[in-house]
């Protein structure tokens, strides 16, 4: 994986990387991806992918009102709140 690809992927994943991390990951990731190529020899024609290992019957919850977190509890884990709302970075 070339460094410009590491930059692109890190940008998609929203992770700032230092120059040292970029260099390290570039090398590590190439080796890891090479080791994943073992899968190339597997024949998977007409094989369906498994997204969940055990089939769970669709189990919807009963449609009834339940208690949930209070506003105070929901906001208790951040200092970034204002007037009872979460505060976040600017989007525009």
């Amino acid at each position, binding site marked *: *994986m070339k460094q410009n690809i590491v930059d692109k992927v890190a940008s998609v994943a929203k992770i*700032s990387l230092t120059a040292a991390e970029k260099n390290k990951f570039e090398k*590590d990731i190439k080796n890891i991806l090479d080791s994943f190529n073992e899968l190339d020899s597997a024949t998977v024609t007409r094989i369906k992918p498994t997204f969940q290992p055990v089939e769970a019957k669709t189990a919807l919850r009963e449609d009834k009102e339940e208690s949930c977190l209070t506003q105070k509890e929901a906001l208790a884990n951040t200092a*970034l709140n204002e007037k009872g709302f979460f505060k976040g970075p600017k989007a525009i």
Partner: protein
Amino acid sequence: MKYENMPTAQFIKESNNGNINYNDFYRKFFEKLKEADKKYNLLITQNTKKPTITKGKITALPLSVKDCICTRNIKTTAGSKILENYIPPFDATAIKKLKEQGGVIVGKTAQDEFGHGTFSTNCAYKIPKNPLDPKRSCGGSSGGAGGLVAALNMPHIAIAESTGGSISAPAAFTGTVGITPTYGRVSRYGLIDYANSLDKIGAMGKTVEDAALALNIMSGHDPMDETSINEKVPDFLTATKKDIKGMKLGVPKEYFSEKIDDKIKNIIWDKIKHLETLGATYEKCSLPTTKYTIPSYYIIAMCETSTNLAKFCGMRYGAAEDLKGRDFNEYFSDIRGKYLGEEAKRRIILGTYARMAGYRDQYYLKAMKVRTLIINDYKKAFKKYDCLVSPTMPFIAPKFKDIEKLTPVENYFADILTAGPNLAGIPMISVPAGTHQSMPVGMHILAGHMQEEKILQIAGATH
């Protein structure tokens, strides 16, 4: 009353009969807990408040909980700096059930950040040391759990979690018992995801009965988790005492390959021969897809973790900073870059890459299809055998100085015997089988989906 080396069942009996002086017991217990933590770095958070006693199936029994499982009003970090000050306002369903039956949460155990590791060396906090040899790893990612079970000689069960072998590995390396149930047997509600289609809450203890007892309480359908299985839960404790006469064991040749330490293979063969004397029969068999388990597991786990961990971005909970006019791209990237550890970043980057346009079919979809082949291999085997048996780990607990030298690819190889069963979501248990170089060796016992009773039956007979 003497509590040292008291079996869990006896403690519960004495507790329910009113024979335990809880002030006295917990004073001694917390002393030993603090001492073990000081020596071996096993806890991220100690909870040594005077407990409220509730009567139930495990009245006043001390429980430690892996730090990725939410515990109400007790700090829960999943081993990451990005959740350093997170205090959940709710209990995971498994914890709620254990508390309702009298369990007392005594602390949160050390782990690899978000479960990303096999040796508990990818820790944002302290690195747990193996109580049997502090120069060696406890295994991971539930290293603190395994280490604490090994270090404490008091009644205690550790609640742990496995994604690719994170219960079995520390059980093998610390000489303890670790059970990982079928995917969906125990609710994942309140478990901080590493990889949602692989994560399973399980238990570790000194005995097979301890593991079965905790699983009895935690199992069952939970409307709060749509992947939770709605099936009757049998009594797992009864299974541990059942005769194994007539049970058929499969011994996969790929799990005894030249990559596995010869001494370990011999110890497991001795154990298999012992099971034969108790009436079980065995046959060598083959799981041809074993060579695909490491790449398939790591691709799926990394893809899932790259989405599961997207929520940790410095808002609502966890690490946060003054916004300083930064836009969301800058702010989220800065927070994640600063507070996520190296292995978490590596796995997120790889998982994001493997899901990107142009690579998705080559990596992610291919791994998901190979996963089907792996599951089919196990299903075929379990038509013929009640259980499969093998070593749990390819080597004994490694020394930290040797772990440091491993490349990521060599590191991932350590999961060669545990990644397959975890990908398939089948139940597994690791039990002590002997020692090599004075370190414990674990035997891994696997069975088909929802067949926990069978692995417990064989495990019970190994003692």
